[in-house]
């Protein structure tokens, strides 16, 4: 997996799960969520949680996205 940190425009469903995301001029549909988890941010600093999703997109790519406490999204990994 290639590690990246790109801010990402994501359309989420009512449960805050990613539905579609926009990258490199194209919209990608989330076909399925392969794995998801969340991590506590440093409680002694800003706190809050970050949610991670490994998704299969409609271009057959597998991506790792994350959503911060404030609702901002990032692309954090692209699977080879």
């Amino acid at each position, binding site marked *: 997996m290639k590690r990246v940190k790109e801010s990402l425009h994501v359309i989420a469903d009512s449960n805050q799960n990613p539905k579609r995301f926009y990258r490199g001029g194209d919209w990608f549909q989330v076909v399925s969520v392969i794995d998801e*988890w*969340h991590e506590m941010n440093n409680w*002694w600093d800003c706190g809050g949680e970050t949610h991670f999703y490994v998704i299969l997109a409609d271009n057959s790519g597998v991506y790792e996205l994350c959503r911060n406490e404030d609702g901002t999204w990032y692309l954090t990994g692209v699977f080879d």
Partner: protein
Amino acid sequence: MKNFAHLHVHSCFSFQDGASGVKKLVRSAGELGMNSMAITDHNNLSAALRLTKAAEECGIKPIHGAEVTLEDGSHLILLAENPKGYSNISVILTEAYMSGDWQNTARALEGRDAARTMNALKRRRILPKVRFASLEEHNEGIIALSGCMRGAIPILIRSGRFGCALQLARKYAGIFGQDRFYIELENLCVPGNAGLLSRLVELADEVGVGVCATNNVHYVKKEDFMIHDVLTCIRTLTKLDDVHPERRLNAENYLKSPKEMEALFRLWPEAIRTAGEIAARCEPGLLPGRKLFPKFPLPSGTTSAEHLRSLVYKGAEARYGSITPEIKSRLEHELNIICTLGYEDYFLVAWDIVMFAKSEGIRFAGRGSAADSAVAHCLFITNVDPIGRGLIFERFLSLERAQKPDIDIDFDARRRDEVKRYVRHKYGTRHVATVCTFNTFKARSAVRDVGKVMGISGSDLDRLAKRLPHVYADEIKTAIKKYPELYNGDISFDDYSRLFEVCHALAGLPRHIGTHLGGIVVSRLPLAEVSPLQVSARGDVIIQFDKDDVEEIGLIKLDLLSLRMLSVIEDSTVSSGIDPDEIPLDDDATYKMINEGGTIGVFQLESPAQRALQGRLGASDIEDIVASIALIRPGPIQGNMVEPFIARRKGLEEVSYVHPSLEKILKKTYGVVLYQEQVIEIASVIAGFTPGEADRLRKVMTRHRSREEMNEIGKEFVKKAVKNGVAQDIAETILSYIVGYAGYGFCQAHADAFADTSYKTAYLLRHFPAQFYTAILNNQPMGFYPANTICLEARRRGVRILPVDINMSVYEFTVEDGAIRIGLKQVRGMEEELAREIIRSRGGSGYDSLFDFVRRVSVPQDILENLILCGAFDSIHSNRKAMLWAVPGVLQGSMILPLIEDFSEREKFKRAYYILGLHPTTHPVELQRVQLNKDNIVTTSCARQMPIGTFVKVAGLVIRPHRPSTRSGKTVVFFSLEDETGLIDVTVFESIYKQCKGVIFTQPMVTVEGRVDLRGNIPSIIAGSIHGNVPDS
């Protein structure tokens, strides 16, 4: 559907891996609607009794279990399905701590290889390992879950070895049976969890076992994650910024509600159902309240009761000469209660132990409420005669209270372990263990631990921790606001506010398991079936329950304590050639010394408060010593009992009794209720309470139970007193005495037992000061004062202190022509073996030079230098500096000493004082005396002779500053100021304490300006100001 229950829960007894107490967990489970809950701490059952009690309170069912660590480091959950399962888990854990088969290990501990075996077990205590063989052998009554992410099966699946996981699951299913082994499912929202769950379900299907949902709970609420994270960092020695596999990624390990669990496991509802079904199958495993005390081995044809009776009467003849009807009646009364409650064997065991000590010449003394028992006295367990002293047996044992007896015996500190070994040998290693303690986070330990985690430097933490008083971890902020040496000191405590917040959160959590000072339990059943056994860092086999828990489980604790003062009595009586039992209790010279406050080194009477009391009290018999011991306690001081007591004792205040019956009870304490036994007697005489009821009244009043309970028993007292012919208003007045004083009451039997030792040590000090102080110095650390103060006091009494001498000193301090010779043990870094070699190689002729010494003794360079610098070679060469310079060469075979000038006297003193922690002739303040004289600063001796009210300036070392509780709640600091002429006690009231910015606690040497005061006939100083700026300190 059965109710969901959490079956994998860690309490704070998972030591640094559980952030919530048992009560909090159980209460929360009840509030969340669960009707049962398991606690599965890491490799221990320490929470078992607390779980049982909390569950009973909350109306839910306790399930006992543990998360065990297997030989490969993987985890497995074991739940007790029934009491057999509980005892099997206990045995499995014992074997894990005790290197496999505990029976064999126990045998090894009794054999020749005991020391080697014990060392191996000490290493293992950190990392117990459960063997498969143990699981196979002791699986009955146990339900097993496959474990968390650190379970072997999840590990194998995550590493892609599904086949191996399958094989292992079949093996477990084979051991426990398909209906007692389950695949554990956790949904903790961590990477790979979803995939793992599917594979685990698949595996369970293939093996044909059920799946069970758990949440691997480590704390009650999500917000407690922070505490758990800090604890994990402490445990794994990591900092907050570090990454460690054992630190949890998120805060999901909290006690989730059944609804939350159902939502998490919506794809596997059967896992939720199974958890409920398992919970329903499990019965509580721990059975409290059993009688587990062993039968004492008896002569054939007799019962325990008969044997006890026979020993008691034989002892009574020896103690009293003839058995009067009064003695007989008392003994019968006690024997009746003891036998009715079934404690004959307990007394026989205690008797047997003291008989062993006696036969081996091990000095001992029974203490505590056992001294209320004439049976204990006749069995020679205690020395106090409770009949002669008018002590009440029911304070110790009563039918109504039916509390377990608690016999405490002090032994010569050096030989206590011989007694413990005897008990182990007599009843078998598998039946005897030491009670554990749970050491909680205190302010200093929390600051050090949490500070490290937060990345604060070691030196800063050391400074910070040392400055803090000995308070609980949640009292740090209060202490900082209260004590001037903290808020006015050189440390900016505001910079550490986050640290203190985290410390506050850790307060009360057990940090680690420890060893009780003297509590042992002896059990009829092998103890491993009652509690897992492990080895403590000190090398004792301990059970995983503390002193409060053991009693409720059904074990009876015997306290075999080590008391260094008994070693002192032994040493000083041997060297002075007297029999301690023949010491007269009416020696005028001894009482005179006590009344002058000259009691430094005397057991229980040496603190400034005690010395000041003695000056006012004017003790003339042992009764006064008993009262002194009871009076100088936080309770009587806060309750303002001391002054009225002294005034009445001296006839300055009238002694009156509101009811004539009280005179007999309170006469010895001048109408003041001082002892707990007096409360019992008053309740019996005035209200006609049975002794047991009266003791309940005593307990309710002294332990500050609920107001409701106090009111209830108070009304009962008045009602019965009135019925007994006492006027209502008088009865109410008497009750007010009890309410007012009982909270401060002290057990007279305990005070009596201590007073005996106190008086004997005072006698020894008065008549054999060199022998007594030699013994005190040999048994350091002990008592209230450091070794240098003891030497100073010895010198003040005309006993010379002789320096360490390479040709004269032995390992210990010795008496030499009426003087005290410092022993080689006092030299920094000196080991006993080396000291013995020095003495052995010395021969008859001694060493004639440094070269001769080095030629005959193989000594490390640093120790040789220390010997030179502390003056040990002065008798054969006068130039310490020359010898020190020559050391490297001498060690290489050279025989040349340089011709250089020696150290100055001041330099010699400083080095010797550092190496010995004391000095034979000189006091640190003496070196400042010329300058102090110029500054009109007088000696403590001079101050002691000045008239009351004289303004003085005195400088000295600060000895034992302390802040006892006061009735007003204000802080008053007491300390002793020590210079070359002796000690003077100083009292510092709050305003002065604040003004001086707490230098008393931060500076070793201070100058006190104040007025001479006389408390009784002991001079002291009331401080007006204190400075830490003694010149050249």
